Each structure stands twice: as C-alpha cells, then as structure tokens.
C-alpha cells in the first residue's frame, strides 16, 4: 500500500509528554519463542546503537518527560554495557525496569545491575514445568536457569515480576505459574495471553486457546487476585480474538510510549514496522523531541480525527482509539480499519470463527523463532468481512 492509503495525520505538534521508553537494546536472543514480539526482520548486531548513543537517547527522553525506561530486546543482557546504560538512566532519575529471559544472568551480574541502580526485574517463564518451558522457549535447561535467576534476583534484593505469556499449550500450568511467582518471592505477576502479531501470527493455530481455556484462566486469575490481595499483584491481558472490544493499543498511538529499536529507529509500538508506507525516524538523524512531537509516523494515527466508521461515532473512541493498527492491517489489509477484535467490525465474526476453528483443531508444530533464519512469508491470514 502506498502512502496515499494512510491518513494525513495530525498537523500541530503533540505537546503531551511520553511516559515510557521501551529500549530494545538488541534483537539478539538465545530463546526461540514461537510468539516472539520482535519484527519479522531483525536488526543486525553490528548496527546496534553504541553505549554513548543510548545514553544520549536517555538524556533526550528524560528531558521530554519520560519517567520509566524498559530495557528490553531481544535479550537485553546480551549487551555487555547494560550496567552502564542502567547507571546512566538511574542517574537521570528514570525508573529502570529490566525485561529479561534470564538465561544469560547470574547473581554476580545481578548484583552489579543493582549497584548500577536498577529498580526492577521482569523475568519471563514459558511454563511452570521445565519440560513445557524448555520446549516452548526452544532452550534446553532454560527453566532451571530461570528459577535460579529468579532466586538470585531476590537474593541481591531486587524486586521481581514474573512474566507469564500464556496460550493453549501452557494454560493448564497457570496456577502453578502463580505458585512459582510466590515461591520466588515476586511481588507481581503479569499473565498475558499471546497477541497475534508478527511471529505469533505465524503460530496462531498452535497457540490459540479455546474459549473454555480462556474462561478457566480468567477464573483462576480472579480467584488468585482475591486470595493474594496485598501479597501479589496480578496483571492480566486477554487475547483479542475472544474479546468484544479492542484494546487501546499502547494506550493510544503515540500517546504514552516511545519504542526505540536496536538501530535507533523510533516507533509508537514495537510492531509498527509491519505497516507499509510509514517511515520511522532515527535518533541518529533527528532529535527525539521532534520525532515524538512532529514526525509523520507518530502523527499519522494520533487522536480520533482520522478514525473511520464505526469508530468515528462510537462512544468508546477516546477509550480504545479503534484498537490496534498492526492487527487491523494484518487481518483486513487496511491499517485504518476498525480492529477486528471489536464486535462492531465487519470482520469480527470471521475472527471469532478463526479462533474457534484453530483452537479446537490439533495444534500444528511450532515455527520457532531462529535468529539467522529468513523471515518466512506469512500465509493467508486476511479475514473475509
């Protein structure tokens, strides 16, 4: 699709400050999760931003109003300068959150990160049982390492969130994942159903839970929230395909978060590169302030003026902003369409039927995320209205 297919976008500079910066320090990762959230085309290690460049980005982000920096990847601990980046961010007063798979960490490095000023660690688990976790992450021995790293996080005195990405092949371990979070001394667990963009869309049929699985999981979360109130915070993200209304993707396009890729491209969300016709400015060529306030890729879906019907006259338009642009594009071919997760979308019925059919058929094998592999072509995923 050419640029002509995109809205003109907002013209006045956006003066609201961003809250968070998602710093994708690298796309390198030892795990091969079939729902990897990095783009289909990964950026090369040799082109990654240097330590000095990241420090400058953090300076600009803080001046712009960013309060929290999420150090992510790929696997951010693959960068040997992580401590220096953390120290710089913390020196600026930024809240520093490390989002890690953990398998490259040990207690010594965690101690160094704590001394650098790290505020918080989010450690991912792919299941509660070692065999499940290792199979899904495609990394033998990974689960045992993660458990050891979770203990080490607490041993050095860092606060811990357990990240549990759930789907049809690990949902029966959800209670045990909550138990694992408690056992490790985590104060929070994030239970997030897979969202089907990018690589996860390739594996949708292998991951889609049944309606019954989703309902059972929601009941487990609600009970655990009641029973563990004040002890464990549980954040819960449900899958779009079984939803009635879409999520406000990233809290609204260009409203809260900046995502900086390993090479310094700045995007409103980590999947935005999937939308053809958008050009993302780089911190190597432009000030972060200009990128946030005025660059076309941030302005294009800002606010509600660009919204099509039925969003335009919807009372929820300031709540969900029409949902996710990347999902609208992937499933309808039109990035300006109403997210099919919304029951008012003409594609919603077809979305529901896909979820029903795929979740009840035997799961196909995973297409693992392998670093050196060519991005496979995404098969026919477009829905019929």
């Amino acid at each position, binding site marked *: 699709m050419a640029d002509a297919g995109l809205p003109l976008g907002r013209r006045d500079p956006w003066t609201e*400050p961003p*809250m968070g910066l998602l710093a994708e320090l690298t796309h390198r990762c030892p795990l091969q999760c079939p729902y990897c959230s990095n783009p289909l085309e990964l950026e090369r290690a040799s082109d990654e931003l240097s330590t000095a460049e990241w420090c400058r980005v953090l300076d600009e982000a803080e*001046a*712009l*109003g960013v*309060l*929290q920096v999420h150090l992510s990847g790929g696997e951010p601990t693959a960068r040997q300068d992580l401590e220096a980046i953390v120290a710089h961010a913390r020196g600026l*007063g930024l*809240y520093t*959150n490390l989002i890690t798979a953990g398998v490259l960490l040990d207690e010594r490095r965690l101690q160094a990160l704590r001394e650098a000023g790290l*505020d*918080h660690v*989010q450690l991912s688990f792919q299941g509660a049982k070692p065999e499940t976790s290792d199979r899904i992450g495609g990394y033998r021995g990974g689960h045992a390492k993660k458990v050891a790293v979770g203990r080490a996080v607490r041993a050095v*005195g*860092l*606060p811990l*969130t357990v990240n549990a990405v759930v789907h049809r092949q690990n949902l029966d371990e959800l209670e045990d994942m909550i138990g694992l979070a408690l056992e490790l001394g985590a*104060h*929070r667990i*994030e239970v997030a159903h897979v969202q089907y963009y990018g690589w996860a869309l390739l594996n949708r049929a292998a991951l889609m839970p049944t309606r019954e699985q989703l309902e059972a999981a929601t009941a487990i979360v609600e009970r655990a929230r*009641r*029973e*563990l*109130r*004040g*002890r*464990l*915070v549980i*954040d819960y993200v449900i899958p779009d395909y079984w939803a009635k209304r879409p999520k406000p993707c990233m809290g609204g396009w260009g409203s809260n978060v900046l995502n900086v890729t390993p090479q310094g491209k700045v995007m409103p969300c980590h999947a935005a590169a999937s939308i053809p016709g958008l050009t993302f400015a780089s911190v190597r060529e432009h000030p972060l302030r200009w990128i946030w306030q005025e660059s076309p890729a941030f302005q294009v879906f800002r606010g509600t003026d660009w919204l099509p019907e039925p969003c335009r006259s919807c009372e929820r338009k300031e709540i969900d902003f029409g949902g996710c642009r990347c999902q609208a594009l992937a499933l309808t071919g039109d990035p300006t369409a109403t997210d099919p997760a919304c029951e008012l979308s003409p594609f919603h019925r077809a979305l529901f039927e896909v979820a029903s059919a795929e979740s009840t058929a035997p799961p196909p094998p995973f297409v693992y995320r392998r670093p050196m592999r060519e991005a496979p072509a995404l098969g026919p995923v477009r829905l019929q209205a």
Partner: protein
Amino acid sequence: MSLAALAETDTVGLPPWVRLRFDRVRDRWVLLAPERVLFPCPTSVLILERLGDRRRLGEVIDALAEEFSAPRATISADVRRMLQDLADQGFLSVEARETMHG
C-alpha cells in the same frame, strides 16, 4: 488471604519497587512502580513524604495531626483511606509489629 485493615501499630512504607519523585517536566509529583505511574494529589504527597523509610502508622497520623492542628480522627481517616488504597494496589509495604497480634 485478604489484606486486613491497617493497624496503628503497623509499620508502613514504600516498598523497594516504588519511587516517589518530583517530575519537573509535568511540574508535579509522581509515584513510579513497575509499568505504573501514579500522580498523587498534594495531600497524598504530604502523607507519602512523612512515611520516610518506614514508620508506624500511628506516628504518621500523630505527626500530621500536630503539624496541621487538625482533629486526629479526621487525619486518621484520610491517611488510612489513602494508604489502604495504595496497599491494595501493591504500592505499600505493611509489616505488622507483632505477628500474633489481633
């Protein structure tokens, strides 16, 4: 286990994953926690500043009642409401002074 109502003998404070700081860009106080940012009202900031590292709830109420020459019962109700709300969201650490108590 649901969280019991706060007792005056409880020690309360911000847990290590929560930070209160002044944000000069927005010109207001912010409370930072994993994936959450709260913008506490000026009254809440007064309370949060007086928690210090960690302190007994009764002492926090005494200090505010004296400082603002306000009835202790009024201050107590405001402080409890605000701290209970924070505790429920996981933004407050609470330690009972005696574990066998009540």
